[in-house]
């Protein structure tokens, strides 16, 4: 065993050396592990640098580049990509695992750019970081592969969070009544639906807020790029809005003045969550606009020509089919409310006939917004990075 002589950090060049035959072990211990246990031994969170696996991999790439060993670089990059794909195949339904590898794949991609030697990516580098740029190889094609892989992982993350949120949405956003007494009277002749996944009361607004908090804190702990977190949150809000609106459009018992009130309250709580997390500029709130307008439509007066005009200018995020459907389903729950007359609905249809909107009634709840990974260089100095013993990488050495 080599004697471990302490060295000053400035002596290190931010590279990691390993033998070619140790590559499978490196990939196994760094990628194909259950990070949940590695990062949190005995339930205690260890303060590891977010993106540490990505930095370690990049420092290994740097050493292979320094050796001018193209086979070693190629082999490591291929094994890395295959390893990440393997983990995601095995644990692809686990939010923490997918978030962890999305964060690390993006960080690895940013490292390949930041240290590529291309001027456009070096603007924020320190002189020392510029010294750490790759010297022999241009890895632009591998950057493209990692970007494609990041898109795949992002889509997988969206499916995972969708599976978790889906059973909660209708219960929380439509069925559960947070505002007590608003709809004390049930519409006559309407039976309570029993086909919902969760019984009424199983999930509350608090459940979904707690779930959003969990998603957000996991992504932050993994050091996911803030711009990427915004895109995930926007996608989550889109799913919540689309699933809620689609159910409202299919359920007569959800189309009442008081449900409009309840939905607006729920939406305000989601907005409050965005404000609290400083995510108001994520575009998430805007994805709720069709739902907000549907809730308003349930609450406004629906009688005169002036009402029809107001509705047409207010509901610009709803299609004509959706507006007409809500008006048709609208059910008064007490003597102060009235059914919407057929002639009022005709007036609305006449006013909207020139609109070139889609005939679609339901929103595409499976739609995924295109994702981007804006370059986010790191100020971390590679030469200061130390590898915790818990990672089991004692066979690689700092150079």
């Amino acid at each position: 065993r080599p004697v471990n002589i302490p060295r000053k950090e400035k002596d290190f060049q931010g590279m990691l050396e390993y033998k070619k035959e140790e590559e499978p072990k490196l990939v196994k211990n760094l990628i194909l592990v259950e990070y949940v246990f590695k990062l949190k031994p005995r339930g205690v969170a260890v303060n590891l640098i977010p993106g540490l696996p990505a930095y370690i991999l990049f420092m290994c790439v740097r050493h292979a580049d320094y050796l001018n060993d193209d086979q070693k670089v190629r082999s490591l990059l291929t094994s890395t990509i295959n390893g990440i794909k393997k983990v995601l195949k095995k644990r692809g339904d686990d939010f923490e695992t997918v978030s962890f590898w999305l964060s690390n794949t993006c960080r690895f991609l940013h490292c390949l750019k930041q240290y590529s030697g291309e001027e456009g990516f070096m603007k924020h580098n320190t002189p020392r970081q510029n010294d750490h740029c790759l010297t022999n190889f241009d890895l632009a094609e591998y950057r493209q592969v990692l970007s494609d892989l990041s898109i795949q992982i992002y889509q997988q993350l969206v499916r995972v969070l969708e599976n978790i949120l889906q059973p909660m949405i209708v219960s929380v956003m439509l069925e559960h009544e947070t505002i007590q007494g608003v709809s004390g009277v049930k519409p006559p002749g309407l039976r309570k639906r029993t086909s919902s996944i969760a019984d009424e009361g199983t999930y509350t607004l608090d459940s979904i807020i707690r779930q959003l908090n969990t998603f957000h804190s996991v992504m932050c702990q993994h050091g996911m790029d803030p711009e990427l977190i915004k895109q995930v949150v926007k996608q989550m809000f889109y799913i919540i809005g689309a699933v809620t609106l689609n159910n409202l459009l299919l359920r007569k018992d959800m189309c009442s003045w008081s449900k409009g009130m309840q939905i607006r309250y729920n939406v305000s709580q989601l907005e409050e969550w965005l404000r609290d997390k400083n995510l108001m500029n994520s575009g998430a709130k805007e994805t709720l606009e069709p739902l907000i307008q549907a809730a308003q439509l349930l609450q406004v007066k629906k009688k005169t020509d002036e009402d029809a005009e107001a509705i047409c200018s207010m509901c610009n995020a709803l299609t004509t089919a959706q507006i007409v459907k809500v008006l048709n389903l609208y059910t008064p729950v007490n003597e102060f409310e009235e059914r919407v007359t057929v002639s009022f609905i005709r007036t609305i249809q006449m006013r909207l006939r020139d609109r070139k909107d889609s005939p679609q009634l339901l929103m595409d709840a499976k739609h995924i917004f295109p994702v981007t990974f804006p370059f986010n260089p790191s100020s971390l100095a590679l030469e200061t990075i130390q590898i915790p013993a818990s990672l089991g990488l004692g066979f690689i050495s700092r150079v």
Partner: protein
Amino acid sequence: PAQRQRPRVLLKAPTLAELEEMNLSEARREP
């Protein structure tokens, strides 16, 4: 300081689909 040169050798990379295919054929070869 000397002007840093851009890395010279472009390493050709397989696409994700090609990687998948390579892995599949490798798996098929294994008993």
